[in-house]
Every structure is written in structure tokens, then in C-alpha cells.
């Protein structure tokens, strides 16, 4: 523990940059991050189409500039298309909704550190837009705002499909937000801090959380899929049932903003998974990148490491999307409430007890036996999860047995409302 703390001391920037330098660098970072992010999202739309094409033995877009200029073509198309407004829509909210879904996706990036600090000649520059001490809580707060855009879009369109999509998304996002928040508590337990850079440092000097907290990672990943409305959780837009759900009535750039928001959310969720469970910008198997002096080379290499991890998860999002079919609504709800929530709660208790036990036994944080203990807990949990619980009741398929008690309950609920089979009197 002391060992790790001593190392942490070294990482903490020693020479604070002056206010002017700080302002200038923040502005530069803002511009750079925003540009790269937006360009990346545009290219991801292409990547998604290409990957889906390859997975389905197709070619994908290959016309505009051999396919590379497809995002540009899409962008131009969205700019010049007609903006339609439904006659009965609530216009102010109708216009506000895309903005509301677009902004939270971007804001989340403010607190994610994307590289190791850079020790420039003007002082140590943190490679994060806003090095907030409450970083993680900020993310939880902002991710809840994202649901408003979708719900308002669904309601203000004055369209039954859009409304259904909005309702579904609110139910889904609220349900999974709980599991998502709960699954990250073990991370905070180990880090002892909610600042993102502290979480990364703890992982760099000890072990990546994916080994310590595998189950938490699995829960977080599933919840992240649900939060970003990606398949298999894309019930809010479910093409086959709801046309395109909440953005049915949107056209041109407003539709495009929902689209961009979806991809931005995906990138953010990927970055979060990388940061919370895969050590963020940490380069594995070496401490060289975490220690002072912070050179520009280290910053670049760690940026590369972070980008690799994030892009892998982005690819994973796409990979899952083109593999799994959409859940039924009841499956979605039962997975969220009956499995993920109790599991994450139980896991918090388990991790907390094991950590207390290991601390009491005198193993230092960061020492081999301490992490071995946690890994063993996870191995046991994963085996139980995938070999015992996962028996067709996890996501109940259509043929699974409905247990007798649930059946009776359903009967009781539906019986009073059941229409009589024959007319009661001969009038």
C-alpha cells in the first residue's frame, strides 16, 4: 500500500502550469478532442457498414471514393435534405430533442483521461479536458440525462410509434442505469476514489480491474449496450415493430444528430469500459509509462494504447450488433431487474467482504496474494454464472418453462378483464 502511494506521489504533477497556459491548453485540447471525436464518429458509420458487410459476405459501400468518402456523401445528403415537421408536433421540444440526445454523449468525454500527462516546458499538462475530482459521479449523472433526448423526441413527434419507442427507451435506460451504477461500485471500492485518473493509476500500479472485477465488467458491458440502445437492446428503435422508434418523424440533419449521438454514445461507453476495467491509457506489463518524467513520447504512446482499447470495444459493439437478435421486451426487463441488479448487489457484498478479509489477513493492496484472492472470487463467480445460472432462464427463450407460481399470478391478473365468451343476456 505504501509502496503504491509512494509511486502515486511521483505521478502527481509537480509543477502546476500557470493560469494562462492552462486556459490555452484547455482550448487546444477541446478543439482537438472535438475534431477527432466527430471525425471518428463519421468514420465509425463507415466502419459499421463495412464490418456488417464483411460479416454478411457483402462488399459494403465502395462507390464514393472507393467507399472512403461515404461519410462525406452521407453528411452532404443530410445537410441538403428537407427538414420535415409533423403538423401536430410540439415544435420547440421537437427541435430540442436531438440537441438533448447529442450533447450528453459529448460532455461525458470531458472527464475521460486519454493519455498520460505531458510534461511540457510550461508545466505538466493533464491529458483530460476537465480533471474533475468527482469524475466518475459526473459520468453517472450525465448518462442519465441522455434519456431525456429520446423520451422528448418520442413524445413531441406526436406519433404512436415514436411515443412507444420513447417509452421503451425510458424504461430500458432507467432499468439498466441502476445495474450500471451498481456494477461500478466495486471499482470505486478498489480505487478508493472517484477521480478517473486515480482509478487509472490504481489499475496501472496494481492489476487491471478486468481481472479483479470480471463480473462487474460483464455487468457494466451489458448495461452499456442497453444504455447506448445498441443491439441486442435496440428496442427503442426496433425497426420491425416501431419503424424506427423515437426518431421516426425526424429527417435530414436532426435525424443525423440522433445517429451521431448513437455512435458518440458508443465511443463514450467503449472509452469508459477501457478506462474503468482495462487500465485506461496504461500500457500493460510496464510501469515506465506511469512514472515521471512525463515526456511527449510517453503521451503519444499512451494515447495509442487508449485508442486501441477504445476502438476494440467499438468493434466489439459492432460485432455483437451483427451477431445477436433483439430481445423481447419481457426478456429485456427480466434480465435487467431479475438478474443484473441482484447480481451486481451481491457482487458488491462479495467483493467488499473479500477485500476486508484480505486486508485483515495482512495482504497489501497490489501484492500478488491480494489480487489472487480477487481473481479466485471472480473465477468462482463466472463459473457459477455461466454454468449454473445460465440455463435458459437467464434470457427465457420461448420454450422455457414458465414456473407454476408465475403462471397462476398471470392468470389472476388477466381473469377479471377477460371478456365473456357468450353474450350474457339475450337483449
Amino acid at each position, binding site marked *: 500500500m505504501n509502496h503504491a502511494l509512494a509511486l502515486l506521489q511521483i505521478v502527481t504533477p509537480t509543477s502546476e502550469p500557470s493560469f494562462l497556459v492552462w486556459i490555452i491548453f484547455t482550448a487546444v485540447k477541446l478543439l482537438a478532442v472535438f475534431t477527432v471525436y466527430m471525425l471518428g464518429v463519421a468514420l465509425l458509420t463507415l466502419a459499421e457498414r463495412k*464490418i456488417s458487410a464483411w*460479416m454478411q459476405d457483402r*462488399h459494403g459501400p465502395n462507390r464514393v471514393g472507393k467507399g472512403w468518402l461515404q461519410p462525406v456523401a452521407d453528411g452532404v445528403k443530410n445537410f441538403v435534405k428537407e427538414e420535415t415537421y409533423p403538423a401536430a408536433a410540439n415544435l420547440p421540444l421537437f427541435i430540442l430533442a436531438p440537441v438533448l440526445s447529442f450533447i450528453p454523449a459529448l460532455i461525458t468525454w470531458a472527464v475521460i483521461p486519454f493519455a498520460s500527462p505531458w510534461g511540457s516546458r510550461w508545466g505538466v499538462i493533464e491529458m483530460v479536458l476537465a480533471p474533475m475530482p468527482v469524475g466518475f459521479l459526473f459520468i453517472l449523472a450525465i448518462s442519465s440525462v441522455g434519456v431525456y433526448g429520446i423520451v422528448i423526441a418520442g413524445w413531441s413527434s406526436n406519433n404512436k410509434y415514436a411515443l412507444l419507442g420513447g417509452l421503451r427507451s425510458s424504461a430500458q435506460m432507467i432499468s439498466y442505469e441502476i445495474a450500471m451504477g451498481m456494477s461500478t461500485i466495486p471499482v470505486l471500492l478498489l480505487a478508493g476514489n472517484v477521480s478517473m485518473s486515480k482509478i487509472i493509476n490504481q489499475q496501472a500500479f496494481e492489476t487491471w480491474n478486468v481481472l479483479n472485477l470480471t463480473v462487474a465488467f460483464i455487468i457494466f458491458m451489458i448495461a452499456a449496450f442497453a444504455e447506448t440502445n445498441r443491439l441486442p437492446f435496440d428496442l427503442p428503435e426496433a425497426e420491425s415493430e416501431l419503424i424506427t422508434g423515437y426518431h421516426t418523424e425526424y429527417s435530414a440533419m436532426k435525424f443525423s444528430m440522433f445517429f451521431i449521438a448513437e455512435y458518440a454514445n458508443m465511443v463514450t461507453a467503449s472509452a469508459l469500459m477501457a478506462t474503468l476495467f482495462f487500465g485506461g491509457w496504461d500500457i500493460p506489463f510496464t510501469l515506465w509509462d506511469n512514472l515521471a518524467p512525463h515526456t511527449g513520447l510517453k503521451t503519444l504512446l499512451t494515447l495509442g494504447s487508449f485508442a486501441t482499447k477504445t476502438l476494440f470495444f467499438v468493434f466489439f459493439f459492432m*460485432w*455483437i450488433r451483427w*451477431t445477436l437478435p433483439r430481445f423481447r421486451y419481457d426478456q429485456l426487463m427480466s434480465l435487467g431487474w431479475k438478474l443484473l441488479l441482484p447480481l451486481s448487489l451481491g457482487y458488491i457484498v462479495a467483493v467488499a467482504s473479500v477485500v476486508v478479509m484480505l486486508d485483515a489477513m495482512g495482504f497489501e493492496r497490489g501484492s500478488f496474494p491480494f489480487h489472487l484472492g480477487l481473481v479466485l472470487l471472480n473465477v468462482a463467480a463466472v463459473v457459477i454464472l*455461466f454454468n449454473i445460472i445460465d440455463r435458459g432462464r437467464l*434470457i427465457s427463450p420461448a*420454450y422455457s*418453462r414458465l414456473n407454476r407460481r408465475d403462471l397462476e399470478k398471470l392468470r389472476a391478473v388477466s381473469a377479471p378483464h377477460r371478456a365473456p365468451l357468450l353474450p350474457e343476456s339475450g337483449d
Partner: protein
Amino acid sequence: MSIGVKVVERPIEQVSYVRATLKGLTHTLKHMLNPEKVTTQYPEEKESISKRWRGTHRMLTTEDGKAKCVGCGLCPSVCPANCIKLVPGEDEQGNRYPLVFEIDEFRCIFCGYCQEVCPEEAIHVGRHYENAEYSREGFVYDLERLMAQTHPVCEMWDPADPKGE
């Protein structure tokens, strides 16, 4: 269950969602890394069409550039869709030739009877399928247009070689 549906107890390999997911993921990844692309990149590559393909018509010409048609009137009579309009004419030497020869390709059912019946082997159905036009009128091919077509013509069914080998 009161409905009496027989519920089969299945082994975990069949009911595990995670295992099914992993199986699906490997499948899609395999296809992504080693795709068996079967799409024909249409304007650049074209599928070869059958030798007996019956498409839009073509009027063959003699060496001196005149239509082979002698205006006998067999093709308009045999045409089941009634899409051929023929007005025969005759020059000073007594050679018959078509004054008007029009085929409405919209009415045509591409049966190929006209080619089969033609005594001069003048009118043919062609091995050709890119016929888009901007107007309905564009589909009425006159004699000049029929003569200007250059695509290969259909090889009719030969009783001696029924499978076209």
C-alpha cells in the same frame, strides 16, 4: 402447465445463452475475416447470360446496309402480343421492303416467335437486358433503331441439340 405443452428438459449446451452467443460471435468473426463474397459488382462486372436469352430486338442488315426484311408480314401475324407494326413497300425493281417497321418493346412478351418465323432471318431477339428509357415512347423501336443495335442475337432452340450443348 394446464395447456399440456410438452416441455423438454434440454442439456445446458442447448439452453445456455452465453454459449450460444460465443458460438455466434465466432461465426460472424470467421465470416468477417474470410468472407465469401458473391456479389456481382454490376456496372463493372456482368453476369454472362444464356445463349438463348431473348431480349430486345435487332434487325440484321445486308452488306450494303439495308434491312434484310422483305416486308412479308409473317412476324406481325405470328406475334401473340400484337406489338409489331409493319407497312410493306416496294421499290422500282419490285423488291419489297418495310416502309414502317416498329416494335413496341413494352407490349412485347419476348417469346421469340418473330425470329423463328422470319424467312429472311432479318428480325432477331437479342442477348441484351439494359433497356432503361426515360419515357414510354422511347420503348417503341423504329426500323433505324432496330438496325442500329449491335448486341449479339439469340440462338434459337435447335431440335438436334435440345440442351444447347
